[in-house]
């Protein structure tokens, strides 16, 4: 046991330090003000059922740049894009002169359990595209999809290419059967019909548990051990609490849409096999001819790079570009190290295409 040297006195000191930090954490939390989440000003310009379309006006509109419509995932909330003014992708896009529209899907309740992918893609998303064009008086928009929202955006563009000038996908799963797609492999043997028939809408917390189970020790026990140390310092505490707020703000998933997404995409990988149909229409990725920018994180443990990279082979876009960043699924949006890389890359790419 050469490499272990625990002594009663040092254990006592360590315990004292741990508990002192805990008390300090109480004090920090007690003194913290507003977390400053989603501080960027917006107006709600369109609504349908629980959906709200937000419009963020830039200080100076750049007429060379078509408006961006952001389609976020149904899982979690788009506050990730504006967690803090200093690390806000939305604020960075506004600074570049983009007019930004953002779909807030809202929180489905029991009356929404039968909403399906056709409703989300051919219904809500289509209405948001039409409205963004009308509101901005632009013939077309740049559609930017994030994670599951990226998959939706691909389906949408394949079905309704008319109003989409460019397509940007971020951390988007395309091939759901790559060997390192752990989440997809875990879902393989779950009885999705049973899950939806039991729960109706899928509780957001249940999905969070599934994500935690990808790294259970790190995301539960180790995280709890680190809490007093993190929360005893106000700046670290603020960053942590913003992230916790986002993690715990997990809407339930409309049952039917969840059923279709889990079975058709995760279990059957229909999208890249050309076997996906929505409301009787075949979703053919080869129908996508728009310029396409595909951004993903090389350390993404939720959607591995292999699952996103697959997009390169499946569309007919003559202008396909990739940006691979050394970061994770969430780090891509909030990491200090990345700074404004994502917004800068989008801006330069939009100018160039």
């Amino acid at each position, binding site marked *: 046991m050469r490499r272990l040297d*625990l002594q009663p006195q040092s254990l006592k000191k360590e315990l004292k330090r*741990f*508990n002192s930090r805990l008390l300090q954490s109480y004090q920090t939390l007690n003194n913290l003000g507003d977390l400053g989440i989603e501080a960027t000003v917006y107006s709600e310009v369109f609504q349908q059922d629980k959906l709200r379309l937000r419009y963020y006006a830039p200080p100076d509109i750049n007429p060379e740049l078509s408006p961006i419509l952001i389609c976020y995932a149904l899982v979690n909330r788009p506050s990730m894009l504006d967690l803090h003014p200093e690390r806000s992708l939305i604020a960075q896009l506004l600074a570049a002169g983009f007019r930004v529209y953002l779909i807030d899907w809202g929180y489905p309740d029991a009356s929404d359990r039968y909403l399906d992918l056709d*409703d989300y893609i051919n219904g809500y998303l289509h209405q948001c595209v039409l409205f963004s064009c009308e509101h901005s008086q632009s013939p077309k928009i740049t559609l930017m999809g994030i994670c599951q929202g990226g998959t939706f955006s691909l389906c949408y563009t394949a079905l309704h290419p008319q109003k989409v000038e460019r397509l940007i996908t971020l951390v988007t799963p395309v091939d759901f059967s790559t060997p390192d797609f752990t989440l997809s492999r875990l879902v393989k043997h*779950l009885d999705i019909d049973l899950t939806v028939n039991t729960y109706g809408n899928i509780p957001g917390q249940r999905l969070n548990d599934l994500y935690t189970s990808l790294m259970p020790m790190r995301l539960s026990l180790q995280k709890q*051990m680190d809490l007093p140390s993190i929360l005893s310092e106000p700046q670290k505490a603020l960053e942590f609490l913003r992230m916790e707020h986002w993690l715990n703000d997990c809407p339930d998933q409309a049952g039917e849409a969840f059923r279709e997404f889990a079975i058709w995409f995760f279990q059957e990988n229909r999208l890249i096999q050309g076997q996906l149909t929505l409301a009787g229409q075949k979703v053919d990725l080869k129908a996508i001819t728009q310029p396409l920018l595909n951004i993903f994180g090389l350390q993404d443990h939720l959607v591995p790079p292999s699952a996103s990279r697959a997009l390169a082979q499946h569309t007919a876009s003559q202008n396909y570009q990739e940006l691979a960043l050394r970061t994770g699924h969430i780090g891509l949006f909030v990491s200090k190290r990345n700074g404004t890389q994502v917004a800068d890359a989008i801006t330069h790419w939009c100018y160039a295409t």
Partner: protein
Amino acid sequence: MTDDLEMMIRQWLDICAPDMDGKEQLAQWIHLLQGLTPYSEQFSDPHAALLARMTQQSIEWSRFAQSLMPPASHTEPLSQSHYLEAFQDYMQQQTRLWLLQRWGLPEQFSQLLEQIPQQNPLVFDNPLLKGLNQLLDVSPEKLGRTQHQQFKKTLTLLNEHQAALNAYSQHYQAINQEALSCFHAGLEQEDEPITELESLHRLWTEAYERIYQEHLLSSDYQVCLGRLHNAQLQLRLNIQEQRNLWLSQQGIASEAALNLAFQQLHQLRKQMREMRQEMQQLKQQVHEKSNA
């Protein structure tokens, strides 16, 4: 800082006095933390939940760390293998608790089990289940045929859940064992001796996650996980169906009836949407013709 907090910190400093016995320190610390529950009401819900988690963690961690201290009567220093074994036991207990919190019976059953004295819901080989299985031998006429069938179905599902949990827990035991070997190997590779529990915890986490990832990617683990997930949901659904049946027998609207209404509402919403889109297309055509 509030007066309450100031008072708490003063109490903590008193607890930390070097002349106080370790066990007494721990007892006072736990008492102090437990007294914080009403005090945490002044925080917002997420903060209060976070504090509750942290407080619980602190109590468990303090209790564990204190258990490592030699009693005052003990003059010989404790061996490092004693510390290591105690740490390993603690971590294995924590992972086991995590597993059972996640994959225990649906709450309707776990609440029932809590009502029965000496019934430990953490025991895999469940004596209650054995007893219930013996009831299957009771003649259906004595129980009523319908009730007997329901009872039989529930028991079949409970048995399946138990079997699935056993199979899954075997994976966890294997993960724990392999993580332990990995942890020992990691310990030997450290440049400097580890002198703090916190570092030991971190090393354990790294070892555990490495092994866990390997298991996650094995098809055997995935099948086991799917089986347990499905078994848990079958039980839950069975309870819901029995409740719905009972409600409809009493003439009360059940979840199933409500769902039917929502399904019809959804169909209407879909039709509305299609009509709206047709209207938009027509308007567009009119607009284009008038501009032509």
